[in-house]
């Protein structure tokens, strides 16, 4: 449990600090206008990178589960609950 919390802390810092830096570094160069089209579509592509990565993991897991634990799989064995009153 403690380890998990430590891990989370490290991860959070790794993400938050660079973002904060980015925020305060930007906007100094006043001459070029911000291109909203590029900024917003970039955000979209970043989000889709995350979504499709996580999606690959989740649906990969789901497909593997379905394949591995279907009752017709040769490796399928009865669960310890079968025939009991759970």
């Amino acid at each position, binding site marked *: 449990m403690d380890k998990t919390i430590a891990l989370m802390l490290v991860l959070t810092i790794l993400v938050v600090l660079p973002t904060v830096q980015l925020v305060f570094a930007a906007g100094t160069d006043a001459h070029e206008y911000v291109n909203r089209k590029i900024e917003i579509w970039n955000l*979209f592509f970043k989000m889709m990178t995350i979504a499709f990565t996580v999606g690959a993991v989740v649906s990969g897991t789901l497909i593997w*589960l*379905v394949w591995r634990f*279907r*009752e017709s799989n040769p490796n399928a064995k009865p669960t310890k*609950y079968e025939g009991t*009153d759970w």
Partner: protein
Amino acid sequence: MVLELQKPRPIWQIMFSTHHTDVGLLYTITSIAFFFMGGALALGIRAELFLPGTQIISDSMTFNRMFTVHGTAMIFLFLLPFASGVGNYFVPIMVRYKDMAYPKLNAVAFWMIPPAGALIWLGFADFTWYATPPYSAIRAPGPAADMWIFAQKILGVSSVLGAINFIVTILKCKHPDLPLSKVPLLAWSFLSASLIIIVAVPTFAAALVMLLTDRLGVSGFFDPAKGGDPIAYQHLFWFTFHPEVYVLVIPAIGMMYEIIPRFSRKPIFSQSSGIFAFVMLSIVSFSSWAHHMYATGMSFTEKTVFMIGTLAAVPASGMHVFNFIATMWGGRIKFATPMMWAVGGIALFFSAGAGGVANAAMPFDFITHDSYWVVGHFHLFVMGTIAFGSIGFLYYMFPYITGRMYNETWGKIHFIMSFAGTVMVFFTQHVLGLYGMPRRVYDYQPYPEYIVMNQIASVGAMIIGVSMVIWLINMIYSAGKGKEANMDDPWGLGGKYYFPYQAKNPHH
């Protein structure tokens, strides 16, 4: 539990009954009827959009009325009553009580739905299911608009009465030997959803009255010329209807919590995390309503608050997915029809959620707001997750309702067609939105990308339509002529899995 349709009772005996399984049956049949009616409108919409220009619907007003009634019917006359039907069947049995806490109130709540449905369908309003003023107050043609308002009023009362009944049944009538922490997650889902209803629905109820008096010209709550504010309506509306989306999805998740362990032959991975996630969802469902209003001119601060509030709902939804996956892990899974719908629903639930996170990111709204992206996104929930869970659950209840089995092969064909169709329609609609196609439009510019994607979506919709007809025939035929179910274990999972449902509450 078994209704013994083999020994038919006269129809009026079911109609005037207050027994929970009879009311449950009425809810279920009514909701399915409206599902088919609303679905027919969807197919009409998709046929019209197959090509640019006018196809089968001669004017845009008719088209606008069609998507309005489609949306209203699907949410209020299909999803909500269907959930109530399931709750009526299962909640009393799961808390080991003889009936709902207030059986007469229960029947009254059901009987408010048919007249409301009639008002919606006979009026055929055009102001979308949001009914946003000023349009709804000053331009939307009556009497359709007024009939819609009255119908919503009735449905709101029905919903609150039903919610009170579920809450009292679970908290007060539960068997003393049964601690709340052991109440099955399906019943917990009704407790959470009902609590949301009680808190959320009143603001829309108020907004409806104001809208009606605005329409009558005696007030100007939403009219800037009279000192009102149309944005106020949107806040009242979304304060009800953002939480309401959780009212829809939570029982569907509860249904999956019932199906997945049964067919995995394993108990739920973690009952406590399921309960925790339900309670979390019912709380955070109230922290995000204005994410629907980013484009109305909200300040940066407001947008930020509602973005964070929206993202806050994600971990709890993710916990449910985790719980499903962990339950299936190490099981011996039988892919009978209900299980296929549940697992397909989980996959689409994830996609819908990922799209939701993107929607929450406020700048992204400049691309997607009120575009087809939104239509694709929320249909992954309403169709992909909630309707899938519900349809799977109806297959699951079928032997208990009728004493007979549905046809398994056709059930699987139904699932595969619907799944493929759903992916075709609603994933394509996301892309259409990215290309800029607005929602609620009768026609679109003849860009080649628009045409191709609209055609993919329309073909997908027809596939869903055909599969639903297969379903209907399967249900009707099997209810009368299907082979008799082995009531101890309809799916051959090994006898004792079904013990909670052997219980039968005598008719009174």
